[in-house]
């Protein structure tokens, strides 16, 4: 079986490009895979099925949605909220009406009026200010013949949005842990945060909780790795909280090797986020593979991490208190750190193992390509046999047969 594979690929700098680079060799052990050249939207010849990786970035995924429009197929939904993508596909291509229509399709006249406000520059872009209120995934869901998702959260949201096709939940694959020495960064404890510095990563809350922790634990240090988002004034915040410069270790963008080495140096990694667009976090998966205790926001995919491996922080009221308590627990209790570390390693091995993920992908794609023929054949057999013994369609006995078929996932 040959699958046409649409995804950003390295050297493009995108988490999904890295994801595909990791997954493809393992997937090719199960299936023939033809990676479609970037920008090519014509259906690939000689393939049985198309697989489209869709995320929220219009530069990386716009052409993939164009290809999906020409040949429906299985969509890997990396983010559920696709507002930014749709804005790029419409407004970004001077198609304001397309944006109005997308908003109206999802939110009715009120949403259309809001969209007008965006086009007229009367209100800030909704994909920046309130993307979670209008996911705009409708068109992609309508074109998908099946979905691959990474979380129950996205599965439930897709169902709530009316998607009726098959959904396969496949965990995010884990990278093999490279051989290296941890970076020599001091801290007792050393707390790591990896990713862009902005409000949606809850950096203000993290800084506040860390400042409290440092009052009792002057040896604690916070490692912040990632670019500072425009408009996020880190220095001013540090100053206001009275955090001395020796408490913070700052790194901008780092390459993959240094990223691993810095993560390995940490005692705990903090990965907060709100709102969520339905995404998973490659950083968290890397940290689990390293056996690091993680602290996450209690929402979306992050909520689904087992409590043994992740401390979960409610978003909003009490967030800083809960985060401070979690950091204090990790700092104080070596037993907790060790138990969480073991649970993280076990989770990475059990759920995120690359071969396991590739097997689940292959299973989903094989079912997507041939499942309908299988169901048709089985139902044909059963219907014929039923008719031969006088069980007509629509009878209670036929309903019983249908129920039993559904129980073992052989029904339509």
């Amino acid at each position: 079986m040959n699958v046409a594979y649409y995804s950003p690929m390295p050297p493009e700098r995108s988490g999904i490009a890295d994801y595909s680079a990791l997954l493809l060799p393992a997937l090719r052990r199960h299936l023939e895979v033809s990676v479609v050249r970037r920008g090519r939207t014509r259906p690939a010849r000689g393939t049985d099925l198309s697989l489209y990786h869709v995320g929220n970035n219009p530069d990386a995924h716009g052409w993939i949605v164009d290809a999906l429009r020409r040949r429906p197929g299985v969509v890997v939904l990396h983010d559920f909220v696709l507002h930014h993508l749709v804005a790029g596909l419409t407004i970004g291509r001077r198609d304001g009406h397309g944006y109005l229509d997308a908003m109206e399709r999802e939110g009715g006249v009120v949403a259309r009026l809001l969209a007008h406000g965006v086009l007229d520059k009367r209100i800030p872009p909704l994909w920046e200010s309130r993307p979670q209120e209008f996911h705009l995934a409708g068109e992609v869901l309508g074109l998908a013949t099946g979905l691959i998702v990474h979380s129950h959260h996205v599965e439930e949201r897709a169902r709530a949005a009316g998607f009726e096709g098959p959904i396969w939940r496949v965990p995010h694959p884990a990278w093999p842990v490279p051989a290296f020495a941890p970076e020599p960064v001091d801290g007792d404890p050393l707390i790591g945060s990896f990713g862009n510095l902005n409000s949606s990563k809850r950096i203000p809350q993290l800084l506040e909780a860390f400042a409290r922790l440092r009052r009792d634990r002057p040896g604690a240090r916070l490692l912040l790795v990632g670019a500072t988002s425009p408009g996020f004034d880190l220095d001013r915040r540090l100053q206001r909280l009275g955090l001395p410069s020796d408490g913070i270790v700052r790194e901008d963008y780092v390459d993959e090797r240094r990223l691993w080495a810095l993560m390995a140096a940490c005692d705990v990694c903090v990965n907060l986020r709100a709102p969520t667009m339905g995404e998973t976090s490659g950083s968290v998966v890397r940290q689990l593979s390293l056996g690091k205790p993680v602290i996450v926001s209690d929402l979306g995919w992050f909520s689904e991490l087992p409590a043994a491996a992740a401390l979960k922080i409610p978003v909003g009221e009490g967030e800083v208190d809960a985060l401070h308590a979690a950091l204090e627990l990790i700092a104080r209790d070596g037993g907790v750190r060790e138990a969480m570390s073991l649970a993280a390693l076990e989770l990475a091995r059990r759920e995120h193992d690359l071969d396991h993920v590739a097997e689940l992908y292959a299973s989903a794609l094989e079912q997507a390509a041939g499942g309908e023929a299988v169901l048709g054949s089985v139902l044909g057999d059963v219907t014929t046999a039923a008719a031969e013994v006088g069980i007509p369609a629509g009878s209670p006995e036929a309903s019983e047969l249908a129920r039993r078929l559904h129980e073992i996932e052989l029904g339509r």
Partner: protein
Amino acid sequence: MRIAVCAPQVPFVHGGAEIFTDKLVDELRARGHETELVTIPFKWYPGTKVLSQAFLWRLADLEESNGTPIDMVIATKFPSYCVRHPNKRVWVLHQFRQAYELDRTDLGQFSEEPADRALRRSVQRLDRVALGEAKRLFATSQNVAGRIERSTGLRPEVMPHPPQELPYRCEEYGDFVLSVNRLDRAKRIDLLIEAAALDPGLRVVISGEGPDRERLEGIARERGLNGRVEFAGRTGEEELASLYARCLAVYYAPVDEDFGMVPFEAFLSHKPVLTTHDAGGPLEIVSDRETGLVTAPEAPALAEAAGWLREHRAEAEAFGTAGHEVAARVTWDSCIERLLA
């Protein structure tokens, strides 16, 4: 307790699985349980027959019989565990192996066509649902349990079952290697015949019948083995026990076998087992130079191992005796206690 033991029936085929289910019924009855063996014919080809035939089990109503409740069902082999029952126990002898480790091998069933690939996945999904319904789930070996865990995420308890009852004994460490198995390609009896062709001192007795017999006899003929390979056909209980009692060692090396009772039977006769690195389940009890010899799945390696045993009969006896201790620990009392708990 009223118990229905469920097993598929392949008409005109009788092998280890059938011996096992018959014995399970007997042992449950011997402990005072009203027990019945329930079977449905199973044909797994062509095309989607494997699913529509499995579906027959789903339609069977075993919650009661003739107005009297059935307290428990114990299902064994695919697809009998598709049966519905509020107190379903499954003791897995085999999944449908063509959908798992035999896929894309000479013994596989599913082609590369999308419909065939999807059919294989449907079998796996069926397993996930049907085994997931079990109140308790057992596997006859770590090999089977591992496969179930990898394919369904379920974690069966490992519970080997005792072999058939025979008048096991040891009379000598004689001059032949015994193969006890159904004659089909997956059992790789041809490897033993090729080993005999390489070692003029190796005599082989092959017990069992099956569709591969003609091919195997052809190999023996072509290699001019002059009676050193004897096809004994299906042997009765006494005759089989006598072969076990007199052989030097027992050969058992199917491809990634789920479990296999033969090593246990060999051990109960104090005989070492000759097997291969890729034999699967048997490796859980056959340890190299402890309870037998484990070689590469190649005729020269097997010939060398058989020759070594011939030259080292004291070691052969020691391996067989160590094996006996392993086999003696597996009893019906302990199995049934766990099964019904």
